[in-house]
C-alpha cells in the first residue's frame, strides 16, 4: 500500500492525474453541496469575483445601469479588474460556466505544481521521482485543493510566483520582469521578491561578468578547492580595494536594469490601463483600501487586538453620547510608543532587505519562502488564505531543510504551528459563535503564541539557508 502510494506520487502522470481527480471530485462535491444544502461550499469571495465579472460585462445585472460597467460596482471587490476579466466565462448562463472560475483556479494549482517539479529537476538537480514526491506536498495538499475549488483565487498567485522563480532560474529576464510586474499588480505582496531576484542576478551568475569563471558558476560545477576562509579574505580584500563607485557600477548589470524596467513597465502599464478603464474606484479598491483599512476583525496577526483597540480609541468622537458606549477612558490614551504605526518596519526590513541580502545568493527558492513567511507573520492582517502564499514554495525548501532531516524538529514545528492555530481557532469560535469576550487575554495571547512559533520556524529556515545546521 505504502509502496503503491509512493509509486503513484513518484511519476508525473499518476501524480497529476491524482491531483486533477482530487480537484474534480471536490468541485463536483461542491456543486452538490451548494445545490442541496443551505450551507454553501463555495467561498464568499467567489461570489464577489463572479458578481464583479457580471458587473463588468453585462449591463442588465447592474442596478445602476446608467453607470459604466465596472467590477467595483460589487461591494468588497478589492482586486484587479484582470481577475474579473479572467472570470468572464462565469457570466455565461448555467452552473457549468458559473463554476469555470473554480476550474481555472484549480488548473492554476496544477500548473504551479508542474513548475515546482520543473524547478526541482532542472535547477535543484533532483531526479523526477523525488521531484514528484516533493511537488505532491502542494499538488495533493487537501487544504490547497479545497481553497481553490471553493473559488479562492490564491492558486493564481501560486502560479505567478512559481513562474517568476522558474523564469529567474532559467535566466529569462524579460519574462521574469513581466511576471513580477503582473504579480504585484495582482496582489501587491510579490514586490518583496524583487530585491531577492535582483540581488541574486549578479554578473557572475548571469554569465556576463567580465571576470573569470562565468561558465563554472552558472553550471554550478565550480571545482575550485579554495577553503572558506580564503574565499572570505579574498572577498574582503576586493571589497576594501574597490571604491563605492566601482561597487555600484558592478552592481548595475544589464540584466538588473532590464528586470527593473520590464517589471516597472508591466506594473505601471497595467495600472495605467486599469485606471483609464475604471478610474478612481480601481485605485481606491485595489490599492488605497490596503492603506486605509482598519483590520479590526479578529485574525491571526499579532497586531490584531491592538489595532481593534487603537482604531476604537481614535474613532470615539465627543458628540456620540447617549446610547453609544461611553467614550474610552484615559486608560487608552496613546502610549508613548505605538508599535502598530511602525508595524511595516520589522515586516519590510525582514522580508525585503535582511532575508534577501543574507539568503538570495545562497538559495533563492528558500529565501523567497522565508521572505513570504516573514511578510505573512509580521503582517497587520493574517488569515489562513495567506498561508498558501508560502505553502507553494515549501516543496522547494523542504529538500534541504533541517525540518525534514531532523524529523523531531520538523514534527515539533508542525505540531506547534497547528497547536497555536487550534488554540486561536478555539478562542475565535468562543467569540464568534458563543459570544464570549475572548479578545483579551484569549485571542490576543493565542495570536502572539502563533507569532512566536512562526518566528521560531522562520529562524530554522534562515539557519537552513545559511547551511549552519545540517
Amino acid at each position, binding site marked *: 500500500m505504502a509502496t503503491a502510494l509512493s509509486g503513484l506520487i513518484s511519476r508525473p502522470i499518476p501524480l497529476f492525474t491524482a491531483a486533477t481527480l482530487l480537484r474534480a471530485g471536490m468541485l463536483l462535491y461542491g456543486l452538490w453541496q451548494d445545490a442541496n444544502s443551505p450551507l454553501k461550499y463555495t467561498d464568499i469571495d467567489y461570489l464577489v469575483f463572479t458578481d464583479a465579472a457580471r458587473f463588468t460585462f453585462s449591463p442588465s445585472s447592474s442596478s445602476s445601469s446608467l453607470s459604466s460597467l465596472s467590477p467595483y460596482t460589487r461591494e468588497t471587490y478589492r482586486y484587479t479588474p484582470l481577475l474579473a476579466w479572467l472570470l468572464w466565462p462565469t457570466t455565461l448562463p448555467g452552473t457549468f460556466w458559473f463554476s469555470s472560475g473554480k476550474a481555472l483556479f484549480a488548473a492554476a494549482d496544477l500548473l504551479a505544481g508542474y513548475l515546482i517539479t520543473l524547478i526541482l529537476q532542472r535547477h535543484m538537480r533532483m531526479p523526477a521521482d523525488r521531484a514528484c514526491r516533493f511537488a505532491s506536498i502542494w499538488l495533493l495538499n487537501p487544504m490547497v485543493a479545497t481553497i481553490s475549488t471553493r473559488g479562492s483565487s490564491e492558486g493564481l498567485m501560486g502560479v505567478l510566483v512559481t513562474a517568476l522563480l522558474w523564469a529567474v532560474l532559467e535566466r529569462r529576464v524579460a519574462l521574469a520582469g513581466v511576471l513580477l510586474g503582473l504579480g504585484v499588480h495582482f496582489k501587491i505582496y510579490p514586490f518583496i521578491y524583487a530585491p531577492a531576484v535582483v540581488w541574486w542576478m549578479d554578473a557572475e551568475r548571469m554569465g556576463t561578468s567580465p571576470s573569470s569563471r562565468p561558465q563554472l558558476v552558472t553550471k*554550478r560545477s565550480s571545482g575550485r578547492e579554495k577553503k572558506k576562509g580564503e574565499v572570505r579574505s579574498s572577498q574582503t580584500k576586493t571589497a576594501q580595494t574597490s571604491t563605492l563607485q566601482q561597487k555600484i557600477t558592478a552592481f548595475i548589470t544589464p540584466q538588473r536594469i532590464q528586470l527593473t524596467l520590464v517589471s516597472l513597465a508591466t506594473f505601471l502599464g497595467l495600472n495605467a490601463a486599469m485606471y483609464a478603464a475604471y478610474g478612481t474606484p480601481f485605485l481606491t479598491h485595489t490599492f488605497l483600501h490596503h492603506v486605509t483599512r482598519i483590520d479590526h476583525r479578529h485574525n491571526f496577526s*499579532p497586531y490584531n487586538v491592538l489595532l*481593534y483597540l487603537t*482604531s476604537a480609541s481614535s*474613532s470615539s468622537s465627543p458628540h456620540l453620547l447617549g446610547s453609544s458606549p461611553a467614550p474610552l477612558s484615559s486608560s487608552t490614551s496613546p502610549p508613548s510608543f505605538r508599535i502598530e504605526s511602525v508595524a511595516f518596519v520589522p515586516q519590510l526590513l525582514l522580508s525585503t532587505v535582511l532575508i534577501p541580502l543574507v539568503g538570495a545568493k545562497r538559495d533563492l527558492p528558500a529565501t523567497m519562502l522565508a521572505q513570504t513567511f516573514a511578510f505573512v507573520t509580521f503582517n497587520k492582517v493574517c488569515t489562513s488564505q495567506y498561508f498558501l502564499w508560502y505553502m507553494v514554495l515549501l516543496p522547494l525548501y523542504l529538500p534541504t531543510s533541517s525540518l525534514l532531516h531532523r524529523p523531531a524538529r520538523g514534527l515539533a514545528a508542525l505540531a506547534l504551528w497547528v497547536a497555536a492555530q487550534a488554540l486561536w481557532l478555539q478562542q475565535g469560535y468562543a467569540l464568534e459563535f458563543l459570544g*464570549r*469576550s475572548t479578545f483579551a*487575554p484569549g485571542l490576543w495571547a493565542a495570536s502572539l503564541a502563533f507569532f512566536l512559533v512562526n518566528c521560531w520556524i*522562520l529562524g530554522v529556515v534562515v539557519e537552513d539557508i545559511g547551511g549552519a545546521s545540517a
Partner: protein
Amino acid sequence: MRQRITFFHRNEHGIEPTSLEVGDRSISGPDLVVAREHRVTLAVEELPAELQELLRSSNELYIRWSTPRALESLGPWTSRLPPGLHAFYTPQKGEVLESLRLCTQLRTVFGDIDCSSPAESFTTLPNDRFSHSTAYQYFHTLKSLSNFTTYVEQYACVPKEKCKERVEELANAVSLDLSYDAISHVVKITAVWPEAHQTLSINSHPDHRTEVGILTPDTPPHLEPHELGVTGLLTVLGEDTKPSPVLFSFPARHKDTESSFSSTFLKPWGLHPTMQLHIDSSKPPSDDVRCSLHAYLTLPRFIFADKYQLNDELFLSSKNLTALRYMTQPVDLEAPDYAMKLWGSSVLLELQPPAGQDAEPWTAEIPLHLRYMSPAAGGYTNIDVPSPAVFWACTAEDGTQFPNSPFDRVNLGYDGLFGPRTSFWHVKPAPEGDGSLMHQIRVPVLDLDMSKWISTGTSAVVLLGFAFVVFKLLSVYLKTGYGSQKSAKETQKKKQ
C-alpha cells in the same frame, strides 16, 4: 391651533348620550374605557422660533415614535412600527445636508440621540419606487418621550397647570407623530393612548377649535371590505350645544389581524445573532386578495443583515424566508460600529409561511451580524434591537384607492415600499418576558481593563520575535557573508 380628540371604545363599553354635559367651551361626562387620540394642528408661526427656522428649510418632515411596550391596539390606530424614533425628511431645494440644524433640534426635543447631520447620520430612501417616500430616513432606539414632555412643558405650558398635567400624560402614549409638509404649511402632532379608564373633562381655549368624538365600531350599509365603519357622537366645543350622532365609514389602509407574533434572539448570540420570529398563524387575513407576509426591521448600525447572504433561495427557504424585498443602500459589511455615523439600515423581508391550509404556528429566522463595538470595561456591551413590524401586505382589488383618511398614518417607512393599492394587516407583537419590544443583547467587546497590557505586550512580543530572526540572520551573515553558490558549496564540502 386646532384640536381633535377622539375616544374609541368597544361596543360593550358604550355610554348614554344623555350622560354627556356640553358646556360653553367644555364637555364632561362619566369615566370611559377607551383608547384615545389627541391631534393638535398648529400653524408654523405658532411654534418656537428655532423650529420655525428648521421647518422653513424642510420640504417634508415626518417624525414617528412608537412605544417599546407591547400593547393591544383598538380603533383605527392599528398601524405598527418598530419601537423607537423614526424620522423621514426631505430638505428644501438648496438646503445643505451638512447642516446641523435638524439633528440639533431633534436632540433638543427628544433628548440625547446619536445624530450629527442628515449627510452623516441619515440614510437615503429609494426614489425610484413610488413617489410618496421622503428622501432621507433616520431611526434611533428612543425608549421614552420624557425629554419631549419636558420640552413641550417649557414651550407650551408657561402659565397653565392644567396643561402640564395633559402633557405629562404623554408618558403613557403608545405613539407620537409629528408631520409637516411645505404644501400644507401646518404641523400636525398626534398622540395615541392605549385603552384605559379615562375621565371625560375637556375645556377648550376660545381661540382654538376643539372637536371631540366618542366612537365605536359599527357596520354602516354598503361598507366596502377595505373600509372601517364607526358610529358615535361628535361635538365641536363652543359651536355645538349637544353631541351630534354620526355613522360613517372611511378607507383603512392598516388593519389588525387576529394573529400575533413574538421575536427572540436565538442563544448563543455570538457575533452573528439570529432573530427568530414565532408567528401563531400561517393563514392570510383574506382569501379574496393576494397577501404576502412581511417583516420590516429598523436595525441600528451595530447590527445588520447581509444582502448577499439573503440572496440564495435554498438558504432563504431554510429560514422560512421568501426574499429580501428592500434594504437600505449601501450597508457597509466590514466597518466597525465606532467608525460609522449612519444610523443603521432598514430591511423589508418577505416571509414564507408553511403552505398548508390550517392556521398553524410556525417560525422564521433572520440571520444578522454584529459589528465590532468600542472596548468597554468588563468585556461586554448591551445593545437594544427593536422588534420588527410584521404585517400581511395585500393588494386591494382594482380601482381601490386609499385617499387620505382621518385616522390613517402615512410615511411609516415601509408603506412607501409598496404600491398605492396595498393594504397592511398587522400581526400583533407579543412581548418578551419583561413586556418590552426592545431586545437587549450582549455584545462581546475587548475588555478595557485588559487594554493597558495590549500595547506594551504586543510591542514586546513583536520586538522579541523580530530580534530573534535578526539574530539568526546575523549569525548566518557573520559566518559566511552574503554567501554565494560557490562559498555555500564549499562549506558543504568542508563538512563532508
